[in-house]
């Protein structure tokens, strides 16, 4: 190879490398500023732009089933739903811990629980939602994310993002750049304050499998993570409202261990927290309010949130009265 050829090759690969580094950086920067979709929700939290009095965390049951705007309206307390479809505590637990580290206004954290909440996931859900925040302490050390070679390589090899980034992340990045240039209101993540309802009738999404007996997962390691998160929240003076979400009653008998699961979560209540079990909610017998066995549709979510708001209001009133009588006792 002649000197000229060597220099030419070097120039070719150098230019390519520089271009790819700039593009990679731009994609990540854009993705961090997106306000769309679930990436947008995570971004708002990681940028410390969400600090509401009531925060809702959980998986898809919470994401579709708790209408944050209704809760906000009924309780007159700023509310945001940061539940993430398909995640379990191993992933959204880090979001809770991050939120707990910076929030000054948060007083109540609603933990939406469901039949699969104590399932020990082996693989993370949609790790691309978290890729832009790989530098974050919680995210980079998350054991579930680190169980995938893709995430580990993404952490350690430059430009590996091009292999793992998908269309959804590129879209988020594009949206993020749009946001930066148009200076949208940074706190309008969603009209629904993070609530993502599915306006579907029963079985409409073609995901209904025939019902068969299945054992409910009761993994102790996963339960320990819930315990840890609740303790961390309590340590900062935040009250945890454990909400066992309603599911269609017709499927109840197929879940072996259901009652045990409910009792297990009830044990997290302690003295500081509240446990609300909606297993036997009045509407849980009707398919009109569900789109599958375990998830409320939009109609169900609106109805359920009304009920939840009323129960939370009673809880808040009772707490206030308790505080007043304690203060009166001290004065006397």
């Amino acid at each position, binding site marked *: *190879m002649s000197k000229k050829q060597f220099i030419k090759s070097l120039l*070719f690969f150098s230019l390519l490398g520089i*271009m790819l580094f700039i*593009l990679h950086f731009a994609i990540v920067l854009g993705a961090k500023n997106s306000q769309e979709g679930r990436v947008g929700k995570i971004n708002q939290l990681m940028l410390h732009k969400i600090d509401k009095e009531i925060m809702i965390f959980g998986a898809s049951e919470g994401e579709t089933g708790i209408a944050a705007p209704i809760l906000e309206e009924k309780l007159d307390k700023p509310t945001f739903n940061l539940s993430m479809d398909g995640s379990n505590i191993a992933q959204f637990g880090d979001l809770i811990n991050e939120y707990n580290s910076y929030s000054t206004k948060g007083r109540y954290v609603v933990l939406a629980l469901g039949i699969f909440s104590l399932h020990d996931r082996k693989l993370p859900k949609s790790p691309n939602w978290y890729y832009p925040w790989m530098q974050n302490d919680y995210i980079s050390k998350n054991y579930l994310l680190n169980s995938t070679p893709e995430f580990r390589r993404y952490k350690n090899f430059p430009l*590996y993002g091009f292999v793992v980034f998908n269309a959804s992340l590129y879209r988020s990045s594009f949206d993020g750049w749009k946001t930066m240039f148009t200076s949208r209101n940074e706190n309008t993540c969603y009209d629904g304050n993070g609530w993502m309802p599915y306006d579907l009738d029963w079985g409409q*999404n*073609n*995901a209904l499998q025939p019902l068969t007996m299945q054992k409910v997962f009761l993994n102790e390691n996963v339960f320990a993570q819930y315990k840890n998160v609740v303790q961390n929240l309590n340590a900062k003076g935040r009250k945890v409202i454990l909400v066992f979400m309603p599911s269609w009653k017709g499927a109840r008998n197929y879940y072996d261990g259901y009652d045990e699961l409910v009792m297990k979560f009830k044990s997290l209540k302690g003295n500081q927290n509240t446990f609300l079990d909606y297993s036997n909610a009045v509407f849980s017998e009707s398919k009109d309010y569900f789109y599958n066995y375990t998830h409320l549709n939009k109609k169900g979510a609106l109805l359920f949130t009304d009920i939840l708001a009323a129960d939370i209001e009673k809880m808040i009133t009772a707490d206030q009265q308790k505080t007043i009588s304690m203060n009166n006792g001290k004065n006397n």
Partner: protein
Amino acid sequence: MLFNSFEFLLFFPVVTLVFFLLPQKYRWFHLLAASCYFYMAFIPVYILILFFTIVIDYFAGILIENTTGQRRKWYLIMSLVANVGVLAYFKYYNFFIDNINTAFNLQGDSAYSFLGIILPIGLSFHTFQAMSYTIEVYRGNQKAERHFGIYALYVMFYPQLVAGPIERPQNIIHQLKEKHSFNYGLAVSAMQIILWGLVKKILIADRLAIVVNEVFSPDKTYSGGAYVVATIFFAVQIYCDFSGYSDIAIGTARILGIDLMKNFDTPYFSRSVTEFWRRWHISLSTWFRDYVYIPLGGSKKGKPRWYFNLLFVFLLSGLWHGANWTFVIWGGLLGAALVAEAMTRKFRRGMEETLPGIAYNSLSRLMTLAFICLTWVFFRAGNMAQATDIITTIFTFSPDYFKLTETRLGGINYLGLPQWQFAACFFLIIGLFTAEWLYKEYDLKTWLEQKPTYIRWTAYYALILGLLLFGAFTTNEFIYFQF
């Protein structure tokens, strides 16, 4: 280790760099070690199978050359039996047992049990390559290789070890012994081919695979229109997947100074099935031509024998591709088409002379493509029942024939893809065939090489960026790995 994997991205430059840094006398050992490592990245213990056939064929070659008379034939037969035996055992034993159990209605304890083994990767390829060596030595076209390491490298050379091209000893062995210095022009040409191969595999084949896997899933049924789309997508997928692999193999070898044979020549522009098989998987079709078809007499022993030879070769080729009746039927259909073309040769020549050139070429290309696509249904389907169901659905018009969409959580889905990605698949297919047509008819490569550097580099950068931004970086293996 897949060519489109992160591991290969590290493996390839290291192996290449060390190759050129080493003195010539150590290079064979380095390549052999690298090839062993490459192969063992799949299932390590299977290298013993490879080693077994290498030892048999190495000694068989020497014995064939050193012996005269009938014994030469026996040594050849010994080598062929060993190779075919290994292939038959790992690839066809379960198929054979399944058919015995079905034929004699054996069930439960009375049924013969299956072998619980995984097929060694690339078995069909390196077995055929090994057989071509002993046959060529027997025919006197190739001197037996005395250097065991060089012979082993001939079988195991990593660029073409697991999915071809199936090489001939006359082409490869001397190249493995020659000294190759780093050649800038060859390296550039090689990188171009590798890039194009990666584009075909990652950008096109793996993207189309999402739709194909969705529609051909045994749990679901789709409309006739959906099956038509999926069949066309599969035709492009398998072409891009396999030719993409071949391109990467050829490019990887070329950087080392080794020239592998061309394996694809824009086959979907063929005007007949006969022509298609001169342009598709050329290394396999020439292997069957030279070692099965011609020894059977080819077209030289009268028409009935000629037609039989054609059908037999393609039935065998179908079986080579997989241990399933769908592959045999696929091969049979192609063989039947070749026989039909042989029978109607005069008629078709007459049509070619009568019709305007563009009309004849267009019609014949379209008909050939349509037929090939239909045969791909048998190739892709999991079993005969699914294949016939799909073919029946394609040819049965119904009110929802053109239904391609499905409502799922998150929105409307086009056969497993969002709308824009589904539309992009068509643009990718059009882009692919346009590029290939320009490459063939207008020598796109030379045209590009004559352009200023900034234009060439822009084209390369655009392809690389397209690949990185729009490629489907899944862990899809190359389709032909399963053969």
